[in-house]
């Protein structure tokens, strides 16, 4: 098993209520799990997952996760 530290932002925060903004929480996943596996385990609707940063780098759903990874997950957002 591996443990990653997930952070949910903007409208995705509703899927882990009670956490402060940007607060990371540990998630246990089987070895070899991907970003997509994490998204499914967290129960996030895939069409609302637009951007995922693993250790500050943009990654796709098929990216394999490693123990200790920090994963920030965003819905579609824009601004400027």
């Amino acid at each position, binding site marked *: 098993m591996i443990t990653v530290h997930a*952070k949910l*932002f*903007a*409208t995705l*925060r509703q899927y882990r209520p009670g956490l*402060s*903004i*940007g*607060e990371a929480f540990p998630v246990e996943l089987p070895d070899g799990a991907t970003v997509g596996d994490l998204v499914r385990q967290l129960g996030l609707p895939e069409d609302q997952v*637009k*951007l995922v*940063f693993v250790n*500050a780098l*943009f990654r796709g759903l098929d990216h394999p996760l490693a123990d200790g990874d920090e994963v*920030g997950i*965003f*819905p*579609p*957002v*824009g*601004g*400027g």
Partner: protein
Amino acid sequence: MATILRINMADRTYTLEDLPEKYKYLAGRGLTSTIVHDEVDPLCHPLGPNNKLILSPGIVTGTSAPTSARISVGAKSPLTGGIKEANSGSGFPPSLAKMGIRAIIVEGQPEEKDEFWMVYLTWDGEAGRPKVEFLPADKYVGKNLYKVFPKLLKRFGQVNIAGIGVAGENLYNNSGVVFDDIQGRPSRYAGRGGLGAVMGSKGLKFIVLDAKGAPGVELANKELFNQGRKKLTEALMQHDITKPKGALNSYGTAVLINILNEAGGLPTRNFSSGRFEGAAKIAGEAVFEGNKERLGKELYNHACSPGCIIQCSNTWYNPDGTELVSCQEYESIWAFGANCGIDSLDATGELIRLCNAYGLDTIEMGTTMAVAMESGLLEFGDADTAIALMREVGKGTPVGRILGAGTATTAKVLGVTRAPVVKGQAMPAYEPRAVKGIGMVYATSTMGADHTSGYTICPEILGVSGKVDQFDRDKAALARGFLEATAFIDSSGHCLFIAFAILDIASGFEGVVEECNGVLGTNWTMDDVGRIGKEVLAKERAFNLAAGMSNKDDRMPEFMKIETLPPHNVTWDIPDETLDAVFGG
């Protein structure tokens, strides 16, 4: 028939001119930059009698096209020494367009120093044309704009206002042109490049505009216009970023704080890191949660100007439920927040409120404050001293005047080599070492460092119009494409934020072109977008060249090539040839 209103501040006279044939299809940035190019001596002093201030609403401004209440303001910039276009949303632009005025050209300079005037612009129904009166404005000089705007609205009734604060009166290189927001606040700015000082140098304090009785914008092809308007409206209502209760409407532009922080591209403590440990406390989510806690209900954002669907403008409330400021935008929160090491929305809100009160550009002011912090004038994170220094700027004390001169000048005076500027204008809230394409835009933009002249953040960070690697260095074509398309959007009269929707939804982009054709009677296609943008940029570059700039000015500050930026530990490593290829290759 569209007209140009030419105002001479030397003798307070005006003329109404038929729009010349050669300007027939120009509006917004396309027209301000063309008139600056055609009429302003590139070697003139920006604050002397030969500079001109041009205001022009966009092509579809004043119609029912969604999110289109924009105005471009242009001149030779006292901050950069080159051409400048800054734009703003407000009720002012549609009112001006409804009078049939395609541009106001303010020229000349009164002989009497320290006298300020107002232009009172109304519609003369009998004569069927605009009418101008010159009224003394001295009693509004030196005052907080939050006090002055209500007085003007009380005196003149339902009017729109363009004006300057003490920053423009004092000829600060950091001074914007302020417009009224939808609730009459002095909070919408054509902020960048010191255009307030150009207006101030002409003794012009306000343009007060009453469009009552004005005929409205003529449509050459109403059916085509409506077809385009519908397509764009559908795209805006449908896209996740721009739709009601979507990201911008819920969290405002500051929803970007966390995402840039996650990407390691949020400039922190005067561009010394790409991550701020206090980011979550100043993010759009914190604005939403903070207001909910203080007001006891969820608050969605409002339109900054009439007819906007996106409605991204927020208000930040004090703990007692009274209003502190509108609006805390991403750029403004970042400039005074992460970039100054300040993690309090109450502090950023107060600093932004003071910028609005004095007539300052929040980006330039925040980056200037960060440079002052680096110099040791105050500590990073010291909000109380930052607020005290802002009051010095408002009072016009010697230290206040130095800070009001902008980031580059302040860095020179205080001996700071880490000055994050291009062509004298400070960088906004994206770290170019970590997001290469936006750095190429900063370097090569005709405006100095300016994210709104080519928002490559869409594909580089947000995954809008596809996704490209933020570190990829081969982005000359990407930067060029965004620079050109933006010069077109800035001419159309639409807010740049329609780009989020129309870059992903092609019918929305078609709709914009059809709206323009519907107003102008042109037969533009999507291919004309790039051509029109290119023509605008060519005039701007020609002006800058004649003003003494060259490709050597299309460069990043040296410290970014030397200092590595955490957390990615990257430098600015784009070769100069790649920068030159943006326009040359």
